[in-house]
């Protein structure tokens, strides 16, 4: 690394990036002979010369020759020999994959998300200027991988599984169209949407395309859970079955009500599929050693906004989040109070804990730290989510108190009806994490400490017409592009990894 690298600043997605810092991280790895970083079409690109034995560096300027992507095959790449020097066979390809994977992790560990390169290209030699500095202008563009390479990486070779029915064919066609790949190269069983170049934006496009073509309304979470043609179809079938079951349940309940039977509580039971909220497994972790963390989404944002934080907590921490289908699916917001939201979160949590007979993607949290008479959980949330998390803790503890004095006939209204059927043992709340939770908005309604009334923000979130204050809306809405853009700075990679671990 040269001093000019350290001084070379670029701006990517609004973040100021020192390219030299990236190069410094890369070149410290023993498997790297040299490295360069630059920006290509608005995204960071890393170029790595592996220090692998047998891959002699050509004396000629390699400039425009690149071994693109992670697959460094022994044959010419894309029909072009790499600097006239073959880079090993399949073993070398595997090595290169391993090196690249490790470098990605290394960057992710050492650098903020927005500094982790999006493109990775293996070179035989970094082009240098006459004075020995990296000649960034001669760095080749990160070449799009050939179908063969993509296939090798994502599993489309050697045999491509054809669609089993018209639905799979439609899904495959949509995926190929979004990824701009020949339909015939996609294997229904193994072609992985994200490994083939899909990102958060193209994921949204795919969901929209499926909605248009098939009338199905899959969620982003479902796509992350099973990002293959067959997996998507499986999710579609599951959603359809779930909807049918819900319809049957509703019909049965209506029949019972018409016939004078006892109507059930309006609060959804643990088995009711049509809830406004849903559980997302952000990271399965190791529940035998770590307490699970349950996070509630903020107002106007998906719980996927917690992924950058989750990544910082280490892979061992099980993390679940409550997401609102209204945000992604556009349905009506039906929950009428913070207490109702908290109660629904608790029912979902019981499923995740394996107490309610349900489950979430990634499996139920059980055993180890969760085993025993009183499992423990950590609750948390950002802004609105923090208020809901606190209410969840209050309801859980209220129910615990009720159960402790169940011989006492005096009723208490502290715990909502949903918790009366909450499976036991009730989880103990280890702590509640509140990230700038807006409790001050409850001024005058009995919740706040009167002594702190003067601290309450006097600016209402809603204007005189009942509409959200414009500056607040725009700030919250700015989260959305952050969620969409940040994947390009490696959040996508993280989301993909999380999804992979969940399946």
């Amino acid at each position, binding site marked *: 690394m040269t001093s000019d690298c350290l001084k070379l600043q670029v701006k990517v997605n609004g973040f100021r990036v020192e390219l030299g810092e990236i190069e410094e991280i890369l070149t410290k790895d023993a498997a790297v002979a040299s490295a360069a970083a630059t920006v290509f079409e608005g995204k960071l690109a890393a170029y790595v010369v592996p220090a692998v034995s047998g891959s002699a560096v050509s004396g000629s300027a390699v400039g425009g020759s690149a071994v693109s992507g992670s697959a460094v095959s022994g044959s010419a790449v894309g029909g072009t020999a790499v600097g006239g020097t073959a880079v090993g066979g399949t073993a070398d390809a595997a090595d290169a994959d391993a090196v690249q994977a490790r470098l990605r992790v290394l960057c992710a560990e050492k650098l903020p998300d927005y500094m982790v390169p999006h493109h990775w290209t293996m070179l035989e030699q970094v082009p240098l200027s006459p004075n020995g500095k990296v000649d960034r202008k001669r760095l080749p563009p990160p070449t799009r991988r050939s179908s063969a390479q993509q296939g090798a990486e994502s599993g489309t070779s050697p045999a491509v599984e054809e669609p089993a029915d018209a639905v799979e064919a439609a899904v495959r066609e949509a995926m190929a169209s979004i990824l701009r790949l020949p339909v015939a190269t996609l294997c229904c069983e193994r072609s992985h949407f994200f490994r083939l170049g899909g990102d958060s934006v193209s994921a949204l496009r795919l969901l*929209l395309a499926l909605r248009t073509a098939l009338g199905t309304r899959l969620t982003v979470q479902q796509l992350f859970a099973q990002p293959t043609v067959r997996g998507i179809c499986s999710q579609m079938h599951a959603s359809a079955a779930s909807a049918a079951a819900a319809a049957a349940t509703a019909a049965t309940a209506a029949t019972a009500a018409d016939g004078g039977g006892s109507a059930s509580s309006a609060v959804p039971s643990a088995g009711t599929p049509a809830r406004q909220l849903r559980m997302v497994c952000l990271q399965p972790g190791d529940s035998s050693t770590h307490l699970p963390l349950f996070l509630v989404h903020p107002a106007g944002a998906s719980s996927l906004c917690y992924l950058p934080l989750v990544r910082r907590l280490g892979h061992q921490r099980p993390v679940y989040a409550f997401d609102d289908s209204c945000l992604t699916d556009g349905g009506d917001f039906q929950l009428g109070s913070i207490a109702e939201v908290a109660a629904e979160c608790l029912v979902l949590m019981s499923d995740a804990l394996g107490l309610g007979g349900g489950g979430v993607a990634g499996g139920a949290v059980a055993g180890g730290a969760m085993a025993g008479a009183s499992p423990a959980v950590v609750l948390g949330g950002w802004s609105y989510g923090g208020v809901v998390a606190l209410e969840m803790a209050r309801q859980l503890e209220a129910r615990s108190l009720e159960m402790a004095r169940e011989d006492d006939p005096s009723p208490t209204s502290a715990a909502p009806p949903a918790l009366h059927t909450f499976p036991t043992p009730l989880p103990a709340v280890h702590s509640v994490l509140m990230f700038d939770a807006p409790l001050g908005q409850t001024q005058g309604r009995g919740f706040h400490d009167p002594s702190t009334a003067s601290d309450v923000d006097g600016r209402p979130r809603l204007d005189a017409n009942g509409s959200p204050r414009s500056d607040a809306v725009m700030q919250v809405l700015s989260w959305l592009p952050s969620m969409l853009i940040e994947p390009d700075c490696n959040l996508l990679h993280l989301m993909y990894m999380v999804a992979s671990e969940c399946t």
Partner: protein
Amino acid sequence: MLRAQLAPLIDDEAMLESLSANAARHFVACNRLLDTHVPTPTPLVRCPLVDARPYQSECVFLSSLQHLTRATVHKIELPGTHWTMMFGELTAGVAEAITPFLG
């Protein structure tokens, strides 16, 4: 502004409209719940509360949450604002600060 930011990423007009509209509606709905939040003041929770707030927050909420719990309230100050504290490199500080309370 949102549309301008998203436009290079999403070329589908309907999706642009849908995303921004859903977020706006959801934001309004959640805030209505907050503004009508009248929780039962008792019993106090028995678990510790971690009150993590950004240095530069424009939001001024309750100065203390101690009246909400019988246990300890741990106050933590973090870089960023209400809107940025959970993004990008700021999350490193958040993770470090909350780790002692994760059990």
